[in-house]
C-alpha cells in the first residue's frame, strides 16, 4: 500500500445522512451552541416544499430560525452585505445553507463577513487568510451540487476564498432534500464527485486519510449513478450520490487541484458547460495521463470501481488499464441511458476543434503550472476525438 511521508489531513465536517436526518439538526445546532440559525436558500429549493420540512424539524426545539430565500441567480458582494446585516440585526449565531452551489458560497462568505466585517472581506480572499473559527455552519445539500459545498472554497464575484474554516461543521444529507434533478444535473453532480475523488486517490499527494473519503465517494458514484438515472425514485441511490459529493469535497480540500479539475473548470468558464459534464468527458483521458506519469498510484483506483472480486482477479499490471476501461464504459452507458444527452467527447459537447489549443493556452497562462501546456493539449485532443492514449 502506498504511504507518503510528511503530510497533513483535516476534515472538520461531520456527516449526518439518511432518513429524517434533518430532524437531528436542532440537536446538532445545540451541540454547536447555536440558538438562532439563519437559513440561506433560494426559491427553487423552497418551491420544492423542503423548507416546510426544515421548519417542522425545528417545531418543538425551542430554536428560532430566520429564513432568507431571495437568492439571485448571480450573487454579488451587495447581497453579501445585505445578508450580513440581516445576520447581525437578527442576532443570528449560525448559518444553515439549504441547497447547493452559490447558496453555499454566499453562506460561507456571509459567515466570514459576520466574523470579520464586510469592509475587509476582499482582503481575506486567497489562501488561509482566515485566522480563526467562524460561526457554526451547516450545509443541507440537494443533488444539484458543484462539488464545492463541503470544500474549503467559496466563490463570489471574481474572488476565491480558501480556508479549512469554511468547511461546514455539519453536512445533513436528508433523503427528502436530495430529490431527483434533471439528467444533466444529476450526472454533473456525480461526475464532479467522481473526478475529484479519483484525482485525490491517484494524485501526487495521495494519502490513506484522504483516501478513506475518496474511496467511499468513488464507489458510491460507480454503484449508483446508472441506477438513479434509470430509476429516479431510487432514494438510496440519491442518498449515495449526495454522500459521494460531500465526501469528494472533503478529500479534494486536502489536495492540490488535478488535471481534470483544472481543465474541467476552464472549459466550464469558456463554454458554460457544467464542470461535472466536462470532467466526466475528460475522466478516462486524465486517468490515462496519470498512469503514464506515475503508474503505480492508479492501479488501486480499480478497487472502488470494480469491487473486490474483479480487483483481485485482475493481474497487477492490468489493473490501471481496467480502471480506465471502466471509465470509458461508464461514459458509454451514460450516453446510452440518457438517449445521447451526456456527451462522450469534447466534439460531442460542441466544442470546436480549433479551440482545444486555446483552452490549453488559457489554462497554462492562468498559472496552473502543475502540468505542461503539452500535457493539457494532449489530454484535450484525445478527449475531443474520443481517442484513447496508446498503452506503451
Amino acid at each position, binding site marked *: 500500500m502506498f504511504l507518503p511521508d510528511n*503530510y497533513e489531513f483535516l476534515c472538520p465536517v461531520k456527516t449526518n445522512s439518511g432518513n429524517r436526518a434533518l430532524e437531528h439538526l436542532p440537536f446538532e445546532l445545540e451541540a454547536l451552541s447555536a440558538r438562532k440559525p439563519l437559513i440561506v436558500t433560494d426559491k427553487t429549493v423552497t418551491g420544492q416544499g423542503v423548507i416546510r420540512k426544515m421548519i417542522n424539524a425545528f417545531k418543538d426545539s425551542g430554536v428560532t430560525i430566520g429564513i432568507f430565500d431571495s437568492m439571485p441567480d448571480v450573487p454579488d458582494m451587495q447581497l453579501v452585505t445585505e445578508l450580513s446585516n440581516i445576520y447581525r440585526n437578527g442576532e443570528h449565531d449560525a448559518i444553515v445553507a439549504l441547497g447547493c452551489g452559490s447558496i453555499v458560497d454566499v453562506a460561507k462568505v456571509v459567515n466570514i463577513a459576520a466574523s470579520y466585517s464586510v469592509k475587509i472581506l476582499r482582503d481575506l480572499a486567497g489562501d488561509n487568510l482566515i485566522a480563526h473559527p467562524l460561526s457554526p455552519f451547516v450545509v443541507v445539500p440537494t443533488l444539484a451540487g458543484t462539488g464545492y459545498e463541503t470544500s474549503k472554497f467559496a466563490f463570489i464575484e471574481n474572488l476565491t476564498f480558501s480556508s479549512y474554516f469554511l468547511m461546514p461543521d455539519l453536512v445533513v444529507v436528508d433523503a427528502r432534500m436530495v430529490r431527483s434533478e434533471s439528467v444533466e444535473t444529476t450526472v454533473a453532480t456525480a461526475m464532479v464527485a467522481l473526478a475529484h475523488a479519483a484525482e485525490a486517490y491517484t494524485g501526487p499527494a495521495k494519502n490513506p*486519510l484522504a*483516501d478513506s473519503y475518496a474511496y467511499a465517494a468513488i464507489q458510491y458514484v460507480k454503484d449508483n449513478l446508472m441506477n438513479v438515472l434509470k430509476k429516479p425514485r431510487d432514494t438510496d441511490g440519491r442518498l449515495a450520490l449526495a454522500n459521494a459529493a460531500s465526501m469528494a469535497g472533503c478529500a479534494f480540500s486536502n489536495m492540490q487541484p488535478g488535471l481534470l479539475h483544472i481543465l474541467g473548470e476552464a472549459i466550464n468558464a469558456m463554454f458554460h458547460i457544467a464542470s461535472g459534464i466536462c470532467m466526466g468527458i475528460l475522466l478516462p483521458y486524465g486517468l490515462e495521463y496519470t498512469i503514464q506519469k506515475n503508474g503505480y498510484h492508479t492501479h488501486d483506483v480499480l478497487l472502488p470501481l470494480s469491487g473486490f472480486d474483479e480487483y483481485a482477479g485482475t493481474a497487477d499490471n492490468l489493473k490501471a488499464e481496467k480502471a480506465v476501461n471502466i471509465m470509458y464504459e461508464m461514459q458509454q452507458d451514460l450516453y446510452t441511458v440518457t438517449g445521447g444527452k451526456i456527451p462522450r467527447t469534447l466534439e460531442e459537447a460542441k466544442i470546436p476543434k480549433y479551440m482545444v489549443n486555446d483552452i490549453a493556452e488559457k489554462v497554462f497562462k492562468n498559472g496552473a503550472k502543475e502540468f505542461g501546456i503539452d500535457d493539457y493539449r494532449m489530454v484535450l485532443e484525445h478527449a475531443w476525438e474520443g481517442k484513447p492514449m496508446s498503452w506503451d
Partner: protein
Amino acid sequence: MYVPGYYEFCSRVKMIVGHDALERIPGALSDLHAKKPLIVTDKGVCQAGLIDIVTDAIKNSITIGAIADDVPQDSDLQIVNRLATLYRENGCDSLIAVGGGSVMDTAKAINIVVSENAEDLMKFSGAGALTKALKPLVAIPTTSGTGSEVTLVAVVKDHERELKMAFVSYFLLPDAAILDSRMTLTLPPFITASTGMDAMSHAVEAYTCLAKNPLSDSCALAAINLISENLLTVMRNPGDKDGRLAMATGATLAGMAFSNSMVGMVHTLGHAAGSVCGAPHGSCMAILLSFGLEYNMHKNGHLTAELLLPLGGSQEYIKTPKHLRAERVVDYVRKMNHDLHDASGGRHARFFKEIVDRDGKQMIPRVQLADIARAALSDGSIFYNPEELDYDDFLMVLEHAWEGIPLDRSRIKKG
C-alpha cells in the same frame, strides 16, 4: 457499498503525519492560539527517551508549561485532579498527550477539569454533558495502538470509590494528532504485537458489526491493509521507520472506524476479561478476535469474507471459493497470533491460558471465566454485535478462547 438508513460520521482531528511530524507541533499550537502546553505522559514513555525527542523538536519554538510523567497504567481520578492543578499553577493554556490509551484518557479528562473548572469530574460523565469546546489538545500516540487520538471517549477510574467513569463527547476529540515514526521505533515486540492486534480488532469489528457506514468501512479496510502488511515486518525489524509509520496510520484509521461505528462481542468480552483479571487489553483482543468472527459468521460471514482481500491479498482471495472465505479469514487471524507469538519470543499469547504477568503468573485462571462471562453481560458494546449472547454463550466462547480451540459452530445460537 451499503447505504445505511441513517448514519453519522465525524473525524475532525487534524492529522500531521511523517518522520518529522513532531517539529510541526509549534505551528499546530499557534494555529490553535496556544502558547504554553502541559505535557502529559507516563514513566515508560519518558524512560524510552520519547519525551526528550518531543521536547527537542519543540522547545525552541514554544514554552513548555510543565511535564507530568506520572500517569499510571490505568487512568486515575486523583492523578487527573492533581495534574489539572499543575496545569493551572503553571499558567498552561493547552495539553500535549504523549503515550498510549491511559495517557490519552487522562489528558482528555484533565481537559474537562481545566476547561469547565470542574470540582467533580463525575458530573461530566456519560454522553452529552459537555456543551462547548475544551482547551487545545494535541495527541501523540506512542503505541499503534488504541486509536484514542481520534476517539471521542475517555475512561477514568476512581480507585477510591471503585468506579469507572466514561466520558463521551465530540469535544473530547484532540484538535490535532501527530503520527511520527520516532514515537514507536523502540516499542518492544511484545507491545507492538498486542497493540497492533488491538488496532486490528477495532477495524475488523467496525467493518463486521451492525453500525457500519461507508466512511467507517473505508477507514477499516485501509487499516486492515496497513496492519496486515506491516505488523510482522516491524516485529522482525523494529527500526523500520516506514513500517512504524504505516502501523501508526493503520491504528489511527482503525480508531476513526470504530469511533464511528461501534464494536461488538470481541470488545465486550475483552473489556470484561480486563476488568475482572487485569489482563492487557490488546492481548485479549488478539485472542478473542477470531472467536468473534466465528461466532457471528452465520450473520455477518459475507462481510468477514470480504476481509480476506486486505488480509490475504489478491491471490488468496481469488483462489478461495466465496463460501470458504470467511473461514479463511478466521484462519488468517489465528495464524497472525501464532506468527506474533513466535516473533515475540513466545510472549504474545495465542490463547487466554497463555496470558501471563511480568512474573510469569497466569492472569486468567480457568475458574474466573464464569466471572468474566457475568461481567460481559453488563457491557453495552454487545448491542452492536450481529448475534445475541447470553451468559452460557459468553462462557462457551471464553472456554474456547482459553484453550485455543475453534468454536463448534453447530452449537452457536441463531437469534
